[in-house]
């Protein structure tokens, strides 16, 4: 899922400067799991904004802010309330979807951090860089692009100490983990595979994928 983190309140208040009426839009998927855009966070932020003299004229929750059909529908009462500003409590994509349908300014309450996983409640780890050419089949299901600080594809640098990364000693060296996993899987030979340089053409953005078989 997309991992988000709340922006400092001062930053959000700065964006909302001058707005007297606001509407809040939460997201029922990733942002709810990250406790940055669920029902509770909508209620909490409503209170805070009221305390700062703003009137919350509407709140809404999209099951997935990133899905136009769902979000367009739940935005109807928000748009009808005609607020001075909308606060989108989702990832950066959700903010952009919401902004497409609102005539007033839409401001993000979150910073979008990474694509990752919820290891346990409240603990999130980055796990994929959307490189467009997945190498996990050769690396024991551990991603060197996102788990190695240098995104190395040909094995470790010389910088690890006691199996930890030179960049952040809290992180294990991805390549040592890959090696251990491959040994466990009986696929040790894969460590020696020379990986073709995949280049960066596939990550030239913004990207579009169309599997509809018709026009966009």
């Amino acid at each position, binding site marked *: 899922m997309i991992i988000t983190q709340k922006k400092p309140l001062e930053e959000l208040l700065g964006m909302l400067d001058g707005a007297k009426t606001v509407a809040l839009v939460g997201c029922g998927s990733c942002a709810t799991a990250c406790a940055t855009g669920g029902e509770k966070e909508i209620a909490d932020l409503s209170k805070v904004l009221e305390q700062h003299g703003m009137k919350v004229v509407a709140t809404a929750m999209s099951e997935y802010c990133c899905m136009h059909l769902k979000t367009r529908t739940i935005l109807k009462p928000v748009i009808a309330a005609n607020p001075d500003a909308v606060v989108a409590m989702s990832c950066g994509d959700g903010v952009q979807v919401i902004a497409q349908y609102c005539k007033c300014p839409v401001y993000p309450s979150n910073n979008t951090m990474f694509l990752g996983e919820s290891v346990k409640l409240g603990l999130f780890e980055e796990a994929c860089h959307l490189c467009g050419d997945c190498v996990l089949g050769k690396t024991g299901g551990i991603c060197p692009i996102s788990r190695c600080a*240098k*995104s190395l594809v*040909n094995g470790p640098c*010389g910088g*690890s100490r006691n199996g930890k990364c*030179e960049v952040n000693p809290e992180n294990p060296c991805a*390549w040592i983990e890959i090696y251990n996993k491959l040994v466990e899987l009986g696929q040790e030979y894969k460590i020696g595979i020379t990986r073709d*340089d995949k280049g960066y053409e596939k990550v030239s953005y913004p990207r579009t994928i169309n599997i509809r078989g018709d026009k966009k």
Partner: protein
Amino acid sequence: MSVLQQALENGKFGVTAEMAPPKGCDFSEQMAAAELLKGKVHAINVTDMQSACLKASSIGLCVKLKLAGLEPIIQMTGRDRSRMAIMGDMLAAASFGIDTMLALTGDHTMVGDCKASKPVYDLDSVGILRMLSTMEATGKDCGGNDLASTPTFYKGAAVTPVYEPQILQINKLRQKVDAGARYIQTQGIFDLDALKRFMDEVYKAGIKAHIMAGIIPLKTAGMAKYMNENVPGIAVPQDMIDRLAAAAAEGKEKGVKGLPARLGIEMAAEMIAKIKAEGLCDGVHIMAIGAEKNVPTILEKAGVEI
């Protein structure tokens, strides 16, 4: 042909010294130190912002050394340059007659002194070597387009012998050699038994490249301890640290300065002499870390002439 290549391929004991460009635009100190190395080393290996700390570019000092009649090795990391920038710099270097290079992945910007800089890593050490080898073989650039003229480099890479699990370094070393590295400089070595064990593994893996042992002359016991704690792949044995500490104590008692550094020079010379006498490696790469003026003394004490 590269001077270092000539030496190593003719079975001579290769000697290189490392030098860092200044943090600034005045190269006079480096040039003065380099003059002292003339005729003492096969090449001077110019770092590319080692430890990810900002310095003048390697190519600048390399050009100056070349113009002064010295043989530079241009270090090229993937940290700050895309493949286009690397190839462009290498073409520019070749136009000055620079024909020897060392490919490195590069320390991460987060461990350096300009953490806001974007870490590039378009290519790692293996990727840089492969790109240059392909260029040399095909006369084409990194996009597959014809080059109007194509240089050839004597290419090298680095390895960390003290590493767990060692198989990962051996495997990466094999990839570097397969990608075109012909000489290899090791991280600083302090324990010859560890070096022997590593060389056995290289031999067993059937890796064919000229291996040059990295030598770091120690200056103080504190420096050794600091490196043990902070520099990956460095393992200074406790008895060396004890000897340096004893030298410092002796100096304090007698009121003589610089005894530990002098001992460091002796220890470095001793190691070089042993490496050469026992045929452990094909040469040495001396990383004096700012004390390049000591390199001729170290080589003299080791009885090594080029």
